[in-house]
């Protein structure tokens, strides 16, 4: 962090706190939290599906939300992580970039907002789902919604209807600075309020991430595409090659015959 002493020194205390301390703390919680949860709580590591309880809204809401989320994430990678000079180098000028960003971004944003809206609506309105909402959800859904709404609002206010705001030369510079370990708080300090709030809620979302159902994102089952259909394991927990050839992934934990613990006992129901 010592590599850029000049700008850091120039930043005010509040700027340092908001744009250097908070992001780093959140990222640290994000990283350590994941390691901790993965090691301690495999049993809680799930999408916690609620389709059984309510499927009509989920049928549309969940695919819309997820599709939107993937596009939005891709957009953020391009917009934040890739400097403008790189996109220009491959022949994408500012105007083209802006057009694509606004159009693709709008589609993604609308899908995500509509999907999330439906997911939130069912969570609030369907009694069964509401009762199945735990503390982590009560943090996750408001935080996620705030982040998404602020992001959309910032884009709409400044880039769709407004005069156009080039976040790539401000917010993105700050973002990349964090990862390059050369924080540049002053880059975002002058950005419009909506962008700043969006960045802050996003930081908080990342801090909350490992403690919510969002951990399911890291378990995207791509390995399924290559695995043999049948999975055999010995009683001791070791994976055994399927007779048809191919080797299933070995077990890490060795919890014997998993499936033994079937869930939680919650006392009498009578």
């Amino acid at each position: 962090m010592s590599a850029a002493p000049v700008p850091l020194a120039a930043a005010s205390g509040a700027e340092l706190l908001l744009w250097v301390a908070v992001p780093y703390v959140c990222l640290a919680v994000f990283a350590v939290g994941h390691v901790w949860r993965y090691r301690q709580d495999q049993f809680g590591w799930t999408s916690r599906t609620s389709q059984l309880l309510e499927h009509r809204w989920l049928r549309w809401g969940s695919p819309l939300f997820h599709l939107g989320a993937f596009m939005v994430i891709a957009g953020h990678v391009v917009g934040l992580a890739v400097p403008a000079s790189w996109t220009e180098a491959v022949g994408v000028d500012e105007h083209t970039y802006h057009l694509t960003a606004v159009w693709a971004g709008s589609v993604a944003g609308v899908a995500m907002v509509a999907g999330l809206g439906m997911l939130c609506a069912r969570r609030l309105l369907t009694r069964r789902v509401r009762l199945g909402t735990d503390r982590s959800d009560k943090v996750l859904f408001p935080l996620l919604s705030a982040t998404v709404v602020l992001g959309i609002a910032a884009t709409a206010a400044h880039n769709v209807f407004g005069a156009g705001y080039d976040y790539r030369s401000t917010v993105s510079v700050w973002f990349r600075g964090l990862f390059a370990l050369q924080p540049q708080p002053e880059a975002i300090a002058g950005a419009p309020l909506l962008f700043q709030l969006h960045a802050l809620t996003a930081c908080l979302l990342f801090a909350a991430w490992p403690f919510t159902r969002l951990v399911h994102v890291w378990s995207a089952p791509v390995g399924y595409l290559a695995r043999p259909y049948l999975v055999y394991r010995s009683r001791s927990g070791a994976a055994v090659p399927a007779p048809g050839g191919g080797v299933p992934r070995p077990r890490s934990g060795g919890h014997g015959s998993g499936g033994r613990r079937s869930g939680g006992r919650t006392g009498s129901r009578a």
Partner: protein
Amino acid sequence: MRVMAQIAMVMNLDKCIGCHTCSVTCKQTWTNRSGVEYAWFNNVETKPGVGYPRRYEDQEQWKGGWMLDRRGRLVLRSGGRVRRLLSLFSNPDLPSLEDYYEPVTYDYDNLVSAPAGPDMPVARPRSVLTGKPTSITWGANWEDGLGGAPENAGGDPNLGGDWAEKVRFEFEQTFLFHLPRLCEHCLNPACVSACPSGAMYKRVEDGIVLVDQDRCRGWRMCVTACPYKKVYVNHATGKAEKCTFCFPRIEAGQPTVCSETCVGRLRYLGLLLYDADRVGEAASTPDEKDLLDAQRGVFLDPRDPEVIAAARASGIPEDWLEAARRSPVYDLVMRYRVALPLHPEYRTLPMVWYVPPLSPVLDAVDAAGGNQDDPDHVFAAVTRLRIPLEYLAELFTAGDADVVGGVLMKLTALRSYMRERTLGEAGDEAALRAVGLTPGEAEDLHRLLAVAKYADRYVVPAAHKEDAAALTAMENRCPVESSGDPQPSDGRRVMLGIPTLRRAPASPEGDPA
């Protein structure tokens, strides 16, 4: 040849009185927790009837099991791997809670806390999911004993053929039987194959199919893939749960809870040796009607020296081989061939088999004014009365009425022969010969079906010595740990309070000893 052992079950349906003791004891053992109130690892349904969950046998709708694609390859009916991953966000073929039923509890408290008054206090039903008063409109065996059958039983997916029209209007007068069901612990489990995270697996030693609760990520694809709908989502934990075949009991050499408590004493447990290399081939048999024989072809004769040698080579211990030779399941499935698999056409090669009930035919003989005890009348009914026969064939032989008919003839011949013997007569051996039984075999089969004692019905070899430390260590622990319970101090989650086995993982060739 790669020999594996499986602990399998046979149920003799003629003896099931539909008391649901098996379901209730199973529930008390495994699913009396929040999140699985609606789930019955063992359930007993009335047949004909829609089943639980509703119409689960209609695979056009629910997409369970395997099928052959146009090129004759074995594929999951719910689609290929890519399609499954694309439908992760919302599974289009998942039964909803309404397809099972809304679980309820009762306001028992009202019975004691109601103020004194002229009326008797009542305990009204209350939904477990919403906590609101509710009315009970469906259950896991709603049409029990054909109650409400006129409205509901027509929905039975097995009533598909033209003969079915007749059944719809007549079966109330002709037949009804109970079908206890649990996970089939299939040789070719569709649930395992559909699990994107690889959390489901089949145990090599005893064939029990389990869900690793630590690796399940709640993608809920197994529920769709299982044609018997015997995997359930726990909506509290967001993970899949299923019948465990009471593996802690099995490992200790005891029968499953449903078997132990079966009032009709109609369940049999025993080992079957099978050739794991031939499973895929058998499941891809082109003609559905050949699946029964194909599956029998996968089972191995535990007395065949070659099989014994191969079994030893795969590490199956001697006492297990001995148990396989004494297996009542092997006798019913392979020697006497009176047990049949439930819906072999799902191509999962199920391992809970059924001796089909003779009662529908006997009822039909009665209804036609015949004499139940006259084998000729019963034989005639088996050959001519299409209704119960075709129905049983839909359930047990992919529609091949001749095979079911053959089994029922065998049971009829046995019944009349043993009846005569009991009355002190010689017994008509010609009838026995016609169904391929010698008098000695008839006595033996009769003993197995009618008088077998506990030790003959349940031949369950205990898990092997190396596991004994783990098994005894669980004695004073609570078997189900809540997600909110304190963690063990070494920081490792221990499932069901059973400690991790410390011995080296078995080699692929199986462990010696």
